[in-house]
């Protein structure tokens, strides 16, 4: 997985009835956009360190250059 700050990572459910969970990438701590990532769960959620597995996918967003 490769992600950038501002991307959204989606974790797909494992069980029937579970819902998808998602988090926002705040910081890339790996090499070349690789994991782990500092993330925030939900809009006002807590921050954690995320180590993506096969159940996760990343949604990239355009990042405007400054």
């Amino acid at each position, binding site marked *: 997985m490769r992600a950038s700050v501002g991307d959204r990572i989606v*974790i797909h459910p*494992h069980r029937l009835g*579970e819902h998808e*969970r998602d*988090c926002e990438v705040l910081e890339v*701590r790996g090499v070349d956009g690789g994991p*782990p990532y500092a993330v925030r*769960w*939900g809009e006002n*959620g*807590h921050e*954690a*360190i*995320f*180590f*993506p*597995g*096969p*159940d*996760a996918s990343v949604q990239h967003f355009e990042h405007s250059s400054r």
Partner: protein
Amino acid sequence: MKAFEGIRRSGVGIEADRTIRDAATVMEQAGVGALAVIDGTRLVGIVTDRDLVRRGLAQGLESDARIDGVMTSPVVTIEAEADLHDAFSIFRTHGLRRLAVVRDDRFVGMIAVDDLLMNVAAELGDLIRPVTGEVLFSHHESPVPATR
């Protein structure tokens, strides 16, 4: 199969100086029952939802107590490049439900015994299928070949 290939779910980590309340909230929001406790890039402990209850709440700790006061440390780990079957004996020896996978002391993910069990059950099903097929379905005699 390598140990890291046995990881089926994403891992979530938290810094050692975070609080019990933070850990509980992250577990709820991430939908996980265990967190890796990280110091820089090193894995220093594991904390589960059960730890929060039994070592935290039940011992009268406040919710703003540090998570490294209730975590399990040192952690039983398996190297990412080790044979996945080595994990079986580790689970048996240590009575674990989750095994941390590391690469040079850096947390990579967790192997859950439930996931391994499902993989093994699926493989057993593949083997049982031809056997039950013979038992359940009658053998059809091949037609007598035409002769001239």
